[in-house]
């Protein structure tokens, strides 16, 4: 059973920020933490009643001078009204704490976040973010690929399946599909893998991080924006299978590869807005024949 049930002051010490670093980080990993965090943050937004001290002072002074003591006033009817109110508003709906944006095959979406940051979501991807406390807690979760332009402010966090990216204000691309890549186009970002939280990698402008077999590698790259933002996908010595997956992401098609060897390496690029040209640019140079692109399923043959 979790710690905070056995230790009767655990939660109190947590809200007073008196936990040790170790206790805190352990607690923050639990689901219960997320509930308590919301409750606490919302409670901090509550306000007390407004009290007019001067009016009260005048009142007391006039009582003192007239020599009469005040009578307690009873207002039982008030509770009656409050009770009716309570019945009327109970159980209307849930509070969804996150909001998710998704794109299907061949779709792209631009998301403007409330802090002014912009996220360009590539095809077949999804981004979800916290809806409350956005002003002091900038955090999103990403699956697939997206390009971020973050406005300056407090830490902005992107959670991916492979780890967490933390930034202050910058532009970068995250590709989290069969392979994992982060490219930094401006400023500086920090990546923490999900496997080993003590290991962080810092990326500066023009640096690319890849993760293969849980090994982090960094490289230098050139370019001002990701190619997919220019409606293109670019490959350098990548197996054909990855090219086919990306084609499926960008167009409403499926491939049936039969006995075609998809392990061969491909170098080149294809456009996102013209299927015929895209197939011409990828399959023809590899000497692969394909059935009519007007059908949802394209059959490949040597």
């Amino acid at each position, binding site marked *: 059973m979790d710690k905070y049930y056995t230790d009767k002051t655990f939660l109190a010490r947590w809200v007073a920020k008196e936990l040790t670093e170790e206790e805190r980080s352990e607690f923050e990993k639990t689901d219960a933490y997320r509930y308590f965090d919301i409750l*606490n943050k919302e409670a901090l937004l509550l306000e007390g009643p407004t009290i007019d001290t001067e009016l009260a002072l005048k009142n007391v002074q006039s009582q003192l001078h007239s020599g009469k003591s005040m009578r307690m*006033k009873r207002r039982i009817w008030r509770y009656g009204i409050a009770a009716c109110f309570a019945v009327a508003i109970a159980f209307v709906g*849930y*509070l969804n704490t996150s909001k998710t944006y998704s794109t299907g095959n061949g779709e792209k979406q631009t998301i403007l976040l409330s802090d002014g940051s912009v996220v360009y979501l590539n095809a077949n991807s999804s981004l979800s973010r916290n809806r409350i406390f956005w002003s002091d807690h900038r955090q999103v979760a990403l699956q697939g690929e997206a390009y971020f332009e973050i406005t300056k402010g407090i830490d902005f966090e992107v959670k991916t399946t492979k780890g967490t990216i933390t930034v202050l204000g910058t532009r970068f691309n995250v590709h989290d599909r069969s392979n994992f890549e982060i490219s930094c186009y401006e400023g500086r970002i920090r990546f923490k893998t999900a496997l080993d939280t003590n290991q962080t990698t810092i990326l500066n402008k023009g640096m690319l991080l890849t993760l293969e077999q849980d090994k982090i590698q960094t490289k230098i790259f050139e370019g001002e924006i990701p190619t997919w933002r220019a409606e293109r996908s670019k490959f350098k010595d990548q197996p054909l299978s990855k090219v086919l997956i990306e084609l499926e992401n960008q167009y409403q098609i499926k491939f049936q590869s039969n006995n075609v060897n998809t392990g061969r390496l491909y170098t080149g690029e294809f456009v996102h807005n013209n299927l015929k040209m895209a197939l011409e640019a990828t399959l023809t140079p590899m000497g692969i024949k394909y059935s009519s692109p007007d059908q949802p399923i394209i059959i490949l043959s040597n």
Partner: protein
Amino acid sequence: MNEEAPSICEEKNYNMLFRKLYAPVTKYMYYKCGDLQQAEDIVQNVFIKLWELCATISFYKAKSYIYKSCNNSFINSIQHKKVVLKYQSNINEHTDYESPEYLIEVAEFRTKLVKAVGALTLKEREVFLLSRIEKKTYSEIAEITGITVKAVERRMSKSLLSLRDMLGKEIKL
């Protein structure tokens, strides 16, 4: 006495005490009884008593005298009633580019939170609100309520657990 304590019988000192203590004490009483008018009545009556007894109470003990008398007066008058806090909510909204549906959800959640806070036991509620709204430390709360710091922490933890039990179903992670 090498330096004489200020006398509460002097109007200037009395008014100073009033201005300093009236609002925090009234809020505290409000968190207990849930009726602002009643809270104000209790506190004003105690201040009237303070004036009558001004010669017998030391200026430096006035604060604890006021808290204690208000507490006693509250216990005498309404302890027998089970009171549910009717909480005045005027939460400031922060601007966000959100859909109207979501703003309604947030508003509903906040109403439920306010209700749930009201449904806490008196002991839990006073500690919870003094800590979260008045931002008092546990030792300050211990002084006001007359219990130990450890007890304050236990009540705080319990109130969070109670709120989670009441509202956990309302939150979708």
